[in-house]
């Protein structure tokens, strides 16, 4: 049983890194309600796993990315199973929730970014999220369980596909 100091420490760390929760939730959720549910689920799982967190082994943010992405991918897959057969293609609704609580209008770049992430599968979405968050390749490799070379290759490939798409020679980048 964990005590009050543990919970206070966790809440402090969570408060500092809450942006990670919402970014991950925003990338994998469909709609605001789903995003809030997913954010809750991520926070809850972080707390459940917090007893095993060792700051000598990993930074809290790295640890949190792992938990958040694992929860979010599982959530996305579970939800896909739940809506399977309902014949509703919802992919393009992805990311509509990130920053949607603020009144700013989206410019073209944000629209392009949303469309770009919406085309990726769950795993490549995790990869790109970490890349956009400017995490070093070593950390991305650590979070995902890949080699650094593999991470670099994948990112290079996505960049190339994106470039090709801009030139009109690539239809989509789903599998990347």
């Amino acid at each position, binding site marked *: 049983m964990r005590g009050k100091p543990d919970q206070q420490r966790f809440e402090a760390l969570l408060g500092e890194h809450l942006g990670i929760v919402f970014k991950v939730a925003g990338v994998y959720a469909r709609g605001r309600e789903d995003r809030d549910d997913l*954010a809750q689920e991520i926070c809850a799982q972080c707390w459940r796993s917090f007893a095993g967190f060792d700051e000598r082994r990993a930074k809290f943010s790295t640890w949190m990315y792992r938990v958040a992405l694992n929860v979010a991918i599982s959530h996305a897959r579970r939800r896909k199973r739940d809506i399977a057969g309902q014949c509703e293609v919802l992919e393009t609704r992805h990311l509509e929730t990130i*920053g949607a609580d603020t009144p700013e209008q989206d410019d073209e770049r944000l629209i392009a970014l949303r469309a770009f992430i919406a085309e990726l599968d769950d795993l490549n979405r995790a990869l790109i999220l970490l890349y956009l968050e400017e995490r070093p390749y070593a950390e991305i490799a650590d979070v995902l369980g890949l080699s650094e070379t593999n991470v670099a290759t994948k990112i290079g490939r996505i960049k190339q596909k994106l470039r090709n798409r801009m030139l009109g020679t690539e239809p989509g980048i789903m599998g990347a």
Partner: protein
Amino acid sequence: MELDEMKQAWRELGERVERSGALARQVQVELKLDKTRSALRRWLWLPATEFAFGLVMLWIAGFFLAKNFAVVGSAPGGAIPSVLLLLLAMATIGVSIRQFALVGGIDFTLPVVAIQRRLSAARALRIRMSQCDLLFGLPLWPVFLVFALQCAGGYANYRALDPAWLVWNALFGLALAVALVFVARRYGGRLSRSPVLGKLAEEIAGRGLVTAMGHLDELARFERE
């Protein structure tokens, strides 16, 4: 737009998230930390039930065989139902232990690829287990009936039912299982309006298994390429 340019757009989105303090407060208020542990247990109740069921079957069949050990040699046919039950019990226990191993010790702080592989493997195993329950359970029901009669009236009671009747019922069970698979594959889409029936149809038809195996392939590709 280049991927690197997207980082700028992403930063802007990040700033919006930071400004969205209301969300943060909402989560912190709703986060009832002490109540979160029970959620994980939901993952385990099904294998736990199967494990308990397997143990009970093992105990009953084992006890029956031990009690009638002296007469098995003279009428080995009468031991078939209990031996089958024993084998089923062992298989059930084995699969539930495997499920515990896959899901029970799951640690979400491990790398994404490793955890997702374990979750997909656990799901594939769960679906196979459900399919086997149905596809073996229906044709084998006369065997369970004979065993129940033996438990109630003694070892020799396996002769109480006409063998032809048993065979026909086993065949009927088999036909029913095949028909269920056909209906699930043919009309599964229509059943998807009901969450429970839809999920059941998906599992019987094997679509869930295909999806889970697809996820495993996707993970392998992601890791390899």
